[in-house]
């Protein structure tokens, strides 16, 4: 029961962790200064403390009365995250156009089942589109192919 309640608060808990990290960083690493000459840690400390306070209020309130939340769609999240990651990995190895193709291929798994023909059309369209828009149309100084 408690685990289920905490699961419903994962978003707030994440915010609380972020807020506490900033508060700890401001207190331990940065100078706070004086009211007249505020140091680099003062403003983040104020914002961090406000966020911490609000997280605690939200947690207590929502623990008493559970708030609705959506369940993650891991297939979509995983595919889109993999697509961006693949782009970042392939670009320095093979260049922008192969990276765009690989990115489109990985992202296509986010949208449900696709036939091979549609997936191939999507990848080809993405590569052609990137070439036409970014390299031919806008003439951006991007390396189309690398290592060939």
């Amino acid at each position, binding site marked *: 029961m408690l685990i289920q309640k905490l699961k419903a608060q994962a978003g707030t808990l994440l915010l609380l962790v972020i807020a506490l990290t900033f508060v700890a960083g401001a207190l331990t690493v940065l100078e706070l200064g004086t009211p007249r000459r505020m140091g*680099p840690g003062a403003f983040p400390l104020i914002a961090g403390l406000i966020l911490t306070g609000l997280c605690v209020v939200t947690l207590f309130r929502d623990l008493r*009365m559970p708030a*609705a939340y959506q369940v993650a769609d891991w*297939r979509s*999240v995983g595919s889109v*995250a993999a697509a961006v990651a693949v782009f970042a990995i392939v670009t320095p190895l093979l260049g922008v156009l192969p990276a765009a193709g690989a990115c489109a291929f990985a992202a296509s798994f986010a949208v449900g089942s696709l036939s091979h023909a549609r997936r191939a059309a999507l990848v080809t369209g993405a590569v052609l589109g990137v070439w036409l828009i970014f390299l031919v149309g*806008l003439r951006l100084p991007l390396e189309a192919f690398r290592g060939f």
Partner: protein
Amino acid sequence: MLDNLALGYATATTPSNLFYCFVGTFLGTFIGVLPGLGPLAAVAMLLPVSFYLPPETALVMLAGVYYGAEYGGSIASILLNIPGTPSSSITCIDGYPMARQGRAGVALLMTALASFFGGVFGILVIAGLAPALAEFALLLQPADYFAVMLLGLVAASVVSNSGTLRGVMMVCLGVLLGSIGVDINSGETRFTGGVQDLRDGIGLVVVAMGLFGVSEAMMSARGATPSYATEKVSWSRFLPETGEWLRSLAPALRGSLVGSFFGTLPGTGQTVASSIGYALEKRVSRNRDQFGKGAIEGVVVPESANNAAAQTAFIPTLTLGIPGSTTMALMIGALMIHGVTPGPRLISEHPALFWGLIVSFLFGNLFLLVLNIPLIGIWVKLLQIPHYFLYPAVVVLISIGVYSIDHSLFDVWTMLGFGLLGYILRLYRFEPAPLLIGFILGPMMEEYLRRAMLLSRGDPLVFFERPGSAILIGISAVLLVLTALPRRRRKVQANEEVVESR
């Protein structure tokens, strides 16, 4: 004034600026029509492209993208009952019933005309008001600026769809993330964890693309392809009845007035303008019984308000450097990347840019009107693009868009991190839009807070001694209290319903 407008006309009508204004409005409408992608995503996606253009041209193009996307959002609202943008959600209320009654053409034409009317009204307000406000802004002290920004942040929080409390939390998170990087006063690095790429802070485009582009793709990629309105939209079905023309005039004017007012308030944006315009019209209209069933006023008012606000949102953005909406926050980023600092001196230091932009708004609105009526058929076809092509293409575009800014793969990874953060936040009903406002305003707010405290020798009462800042802080407090209390009661009721349903 006439000299300035002549200067603006000369700047806006160069072939290159006219071309990019056209490209901006076209691409904006294109992206805005696609469900789930609004002006924010459109401007974020095209921001990297604008880096390669001169500042005037870049801003003219982005402004075109912005109001093009607003208009595009209305098309999706009317035909699909899926608002392409949050601000066009109000148009769904009467626009979609009109489409179901076979009057989609009339609704689309009136949307285009009302948008044009509201847009031109907003342009006149900017031309008249912005220079005066800029002169007034020169009198403001750091404490006043701090109070204006506080009001902007509070306004962004209270209009958040996820409630005031969550809105404030998102603003605080944005402020914290905005503090990452070198502190300009002391030169100390903050919260970088020793990562050199974070010394200059996190890029605005990286945050925006991650929070809105990547997380949107994660949320919507597997959404079912909606059943589209397949009504054939022909010329003969565009024209409203004679009585409806007359019925639309006063609502268009009222909508433009409301929109122009709310657009100028920092942080509020068009969603508030169109909702309040609609609510007001529902009270004063003689045809209030038809609202929600396809009343033409129900389309005209939110559209004129929305577009007037889209224009006047440029007033605080350009004259105070405070974004009138989340998309305006990106426009500020675009200006700064081009070495132009928005603020009271922008009009005197960059008159060609300011007045050129104002006149280009007029051309952009004209392009929207002239282009969109004949192109309605194309936009309707665009709505039929299957989502399995759309979302992978969006992921590719945003990845390459972020990479092209600095050729930095670190930015691509950071964007992915923000995409995941945005996704988790959305699952738990934290709307990321106020985060972006906090991210932009946070560093500026800190700067003014520190300056004000230095000038007052550390006395915090300085914020209450100056009448301007005292009033603004008072308004912020009242706004917070007024919106937090009733929402809390509603939330408790909603929570009780959730518990009962389990």
